[in-house]
């Protein structure tokens, strides 16, 4: 069997919550050796965010942490303790990539800014993910997922259509979309920089701004506006018949833009009289008369379940999507056959089903992921194996609270 795509690449991660750890997870899931460094005692904050089985908080069994840290080795190290930083630099020396998402001020204070680590390892690819980037007048501003989704402009485009700005504020996407997006960008850019190192022989700093990782989604809208003067946002965007409509057991999302979609759709619902109304003849008319359209359409959708509508419409090449909940996705025959979710067996949380990487590589199989590490689980292995410290030395570091 072929080895995993990134085997041989060594990564050290000193990052918290989602953006940085997701970057590390992507690399780890692709076969890189990733050492995750956590602060003794407290560890990564995602250990405290859940979800927890039975709502019982347990830092070793937080769902989010268990997802974000598969296939990593976990060690503890207090960077602020005497000798902590120098030990950390010993760990950085043999690594190819370093990942951090700490605030630039904190990174500098700890001595793990690029200039600090470059001396320890001039070949290092230093991947930084911060709310606003490492340069510019707002580099020291504080942010998080919610702030990035807003400062990156996406909240002003969400939901995809509203009648009135005033009563419908900009809206966040569910979950932590900005954090995840920034994490993937950092992984791509870090692998790019590492590839470049084979030719240049030099390390590199990768500076990812979470605000930019979000705003890049608006590349087309920015160009359309600045070149052609047409400004879109959640109110000004064309009413595109792309908002969930109610059905018998929830909602369905529809996408009927092309006229041939409209014709096929009419046939599926049996060419009722209302669809012959010239008001709905073309896309512009259907947008303009959406309220009337929705009223008629809903009479039909309310008689069917979302899965019925989904399969019926799709079998006739009309794009409908069921507004699925977690259980619908987990039960989807398609998702099951794709092997989209992977089972992992964690010593504390037991068997868990986690989303896998979203692609299949023919030459680099993506196997059952190794479970996320317990806090400090691999201390002996890493400090002993990688740095060659003796059992006694490791015990000594533990006693002093450094690890």
């Amino acid at each position: 069997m072929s080895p995993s795509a990134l085997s041989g690449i060594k990564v050290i991660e000193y990052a918290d919550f989602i953006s940085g750890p997701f970057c590390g997870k992507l690399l780890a899931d692709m076969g890189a050796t990733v050492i995750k460094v956590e602060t003794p005692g407290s560890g990564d904050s995602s250990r405290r965010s859940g979800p927890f089985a039975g709502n019982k908080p347990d830092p070793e069994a937080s769902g989010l942490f268990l997802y974000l840290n598969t296939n990593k080795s976990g060690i503890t190290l207090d960077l602020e303790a005497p000798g902590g930083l120098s030990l950390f630099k010993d760990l950085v020396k043999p690594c190819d990539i370093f990942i951090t998402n700490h605030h630039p001020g904190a990174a500098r204070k700890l001595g793990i800014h690029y200039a600090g680590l470059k001396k320890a390892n001039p070949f290092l690819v230093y991947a930084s993910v911060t709310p606003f980037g490492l340069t510019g007048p707002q580099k020291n501003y504080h942010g998080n997922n919610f702030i990035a989704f807003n400062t990156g402009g996406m909240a002003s485009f969400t939901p995809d259509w509203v009648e009135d700005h005033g009563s419908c504020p900009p809206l966040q996407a569910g979950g932590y979309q900005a954090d995840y997006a920034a994490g993937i960008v950092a992984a791509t850019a870090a692998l790019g920089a590492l590839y470049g190192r084979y030719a240049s022989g030099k390390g590199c700093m990768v500076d990812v701004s979470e605000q930019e990782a979000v705003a890049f989604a608006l590349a087309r809208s920015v160009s359309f506006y600045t070149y052609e003067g047409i400004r879109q946002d959640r109110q000004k965007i064309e009413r595109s018949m792309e908002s969930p409509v109610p059905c018998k057991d929830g909602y369905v999302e529809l996408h009927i833009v092309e006229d041939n979609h409209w014709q096929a759709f009419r046939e599926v619902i049996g060419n009722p009289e209302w669809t012959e109304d010239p008001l709905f003849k073309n896309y512009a008319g259907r947008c303009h008369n959406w309220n009337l359209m929705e009223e008629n359409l809903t009479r039909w959708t309310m008689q069917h379940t979302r899965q019925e509508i989904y399969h019926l419409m799709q079998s006739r090449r009309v794009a409908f999507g069921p507004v699925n909940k977690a259980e619908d996705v987990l039960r989807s025959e398609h998702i099951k056959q794709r092997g989209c979710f992977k089972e992992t067996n964690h010593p504390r949380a037991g068997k868990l089903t986690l989303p896998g990487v979203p692609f299949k590589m023919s030459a680099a199989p993506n196997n059952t992921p190794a479970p996320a590490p317990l806090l400090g689980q691999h201390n002996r292995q890493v400090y002993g194996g990688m740095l060659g410290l003796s059992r006694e030395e490791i015990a000594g570091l533990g006693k002093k609270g450094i690890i």
Partner: protein
Amino acid sequence: MKAKSNNNLPLSGIRVADLTWWQAGPQATVLLAGLGAEVIRVESRQRPDIMRRVSTHFREDDPATLNYSPHFYSLNYNKKSLSLNLTRPGSAGIARELVKISDIVVENFAGGVMERLGLGYAALKEVNPGIIMLSVTGMGQTGPEKHYLSYAQTMHAFTGLTSITGYAGGPPRSVGAFWGDHVSAYSASFAVLAALHHRRRTGEGQYIDLSMSEAVISTIPEVFLAYEMKGEVSKPRGNRDELMAPHGCYRCKGEDCWAAIAVRNDMEWQAFGRAAGSPAWAGKRKFARAADRLRYQDELDTFIESWTRDRTAREVVEALQSEGIPSGTSSDLDGLIADPQLRQRGFFIRRRHPKGGYGLQLRAPWKLSDYPHPYQPPPDLGQHSRYVICELLGRTEEEFRKLIDAKVIY
């Protein structure tokens, strides 16, 4: 012949045959171009990228207007264009010759189209065993729903993302601006980079089957875990958070002007009071602890808006950031292009339009310390056909002419 792109960028020497269109595909390859790969778009007048047509300049009867679309510009700068008409006999052979001298092929046609064109992975692997081929589709290349149509909004719905987005107590709503395409493009660029590293070490190319639905699913794990671990069905919660309060967009002075604020802990709440000039409500004991702020959130939000609504969003954010509180203006397009942080980081590339006037394109969302961000203008349709056919594939000028006459190059 090695790719002749900008030769001091990370992916210099890597060539990409780009058979993508719409958004997710072109957005993935524009990122590879941003890292220095030579990306050659394969397109034609017969079947131009839809994005070339989405422009007020576009006219059916004038092919030159295919070169005026800002939608196309923003996802296709730094690329070259070969106008190869894949419906003509002989065209697939040329495409395979291009693949032979490429490192990567990216496509986002519906499943089966590449095979019908004679450009499936099996055929391409034969001409170039080391080729890395990435296919991007809504549902992936396998499974009972592989042929189902996917658009960003139907995909958001299918994956569960829509079920957790919306105003509190209201219906589910879709995230705007084709967000799922965007996340998929990021995942696609990552997959290609991983495969490149694999090939460098082992010499082995491979086929990558990326499902955009799965790309979105991989970014909402907590939804599935909440169901699996405690049987909980996640719901939309507006702009609020499970643990933080205040957390939301607050109305400021002006039309559709909002400040986004997220107070992470009790210490930041005390700092908030200082930033707001220590009003009595900020000092109330009932708001001192996070659990209580979450409980009395409606009341809390009313107080906060009484402070924000007479100030500009910028004033509010400056006051809060001076105390280290996560906050920012909730930018619309005007706010985005005026944002001093984005401007000073060189996020906007200002370029002239061939019909006059200037507009902006966005650079890739990273800065690399040792490399400049490259910029070549987006190609006119077929601008590099001669370069590809004659220089790269070694055909004579006469042969090139013949291909044009036969509408193979079209």
